[in-house]
């Protein structure tokens, strides 16, 4: 096995099971679409809340996508093969998470213009939303992978993942929505985006190693 064939195999498997990703995306769009219907479709209510609604829906969709990323690999024995294949496990984990990040976030960004229009997000804040998604979601995936790897051998894994990693998601949600709110009222927002970027970079350094340790413990 090489890093290249590993990445290619991951992409192939993801493509053949694209229904999972599509489900997460549909879930995201549905949650966002229900808010104006359920609460109040006026711009006065929606515009200030838009950033928060979009981010909460995105976090839930990402949680859905991430909690099972190692399930199949654990069941069919490939997780064990990665541990013993002689390649660096943290690098393999990083490749896997990066591919999943791209597979979920890229379509998410594609529907972003639509949902921000639905929630009447001011056009000036749209690019701030995109920036927060790009800067903040890597952290969600990297941390989520640790939780998914820790709980992969447990039967009731899915709910446990959510309990384990949701607290770590809160700062990301807070920084991201603060950035969008700040941009709407004309305050500087770069600081918040920089914080998101910093958190993502930090988890980029730490998470692959912790995921690898958790995977090793799980195949034991």
């Amino acid at each position, binding site marked *: *096995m*090489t890093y*290249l*064939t*590993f990445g*290619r*195999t991951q992409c*192939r*498997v993801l493509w*053949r*099971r694209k229904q999972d990703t599509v489900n997460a995306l549909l879930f995201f769009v549905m949650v966002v679409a229900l808010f104006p219907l359920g609460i109040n479709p006026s711009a006065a209510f929606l515009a200030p809340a838009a950033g928060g609604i979009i981010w909460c829906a995105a976090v839930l969709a990402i949680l859905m996508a991430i909690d099972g990323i190692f399930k*199949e690999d654990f*069941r*069919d*024995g*490939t997780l*064990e*093969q990665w*541990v*013993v*294949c*002689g*390649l*660096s496990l943290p690098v393999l984990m990083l490749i896997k998470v990066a591919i999943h990040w791209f597979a979920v976030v890229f379509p998410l960004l594609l529907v972003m213009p639509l949902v921000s229009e639905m929630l009447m997000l001011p056009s000036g804040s749209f690019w701030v939303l995109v920036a927060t998604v790009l800067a903040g979601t890597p952290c969600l995936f990297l941390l989520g992978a640790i939780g998914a790897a820790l709980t992969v051998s447990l039967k009731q894994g899915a709910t446990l993942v959510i309990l384990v990693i949701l607290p770590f998601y809160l700062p990301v949600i807070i920084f991201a929505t603060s950035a969008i709110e700040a941009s709407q009222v004309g305050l500087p927002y770069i600081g918040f985006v920089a914080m998101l970027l910093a958190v993502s970079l930090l988890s980029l350094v730490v998470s692959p190693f912790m995921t690898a340790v958790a995977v*090793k413990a799980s*195949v*034991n």
Partner: protein
Amino acid sequence: MLFSASLDVSNVWIERSDRDLCRDLSFTLRAGEVLRVLGDNGAGKSSLLKVVAGAMTPLEGRIMFNGQDVTSHRALLQQSMVYIGHGAGLKSMLTIEENLLSYCPATSPEQMQSVLDILDLANHQETYVKALSAGQSRRVALARLWLSQCPLWLLDEPFASLDVSGVAVVESKIQQHINEGGMVLLTTHQALSSVVTRDLVLS
């Protein structure tokens, strides 16, 4: 191809669920040898193989490969071995060929064809692994052995769910491998005719 490699396992102590599976276990494996690990269900055969493969860490003990200590950096050993555990390690949504190429990317189409012919899977090249029977998936998993040109084979119950002809093919492949100077460490509950050089009994 002729291999020459050696594996020395000394004083390993494996504990699982707070129970000692083995203590101070030592064995060596030289080129051209097949070592069969025997023991009851739950004796720790699979655990021993996992420890050698590096999927589990022993409490104590040292593993040398070709005279080099690989206890803490296993990559050297791992690049020269194939480990096939209870799980087949195949992706159900990929075809046989895609699965095998993901492990052995250097395989040529002719090699692939000949291996599938030997394993009686020639008509299934484009079949998704999820559509194979248990024995057929086992055959695909074992096909990695002779595509990957590694001196050390670690086989955990390789004959599980294989039919008579499957067992015969794998046995002859093991024979051929040790004739070329390879090493095999295997566990099985199957009575094997000739290939086993030595037994290691876990109690």
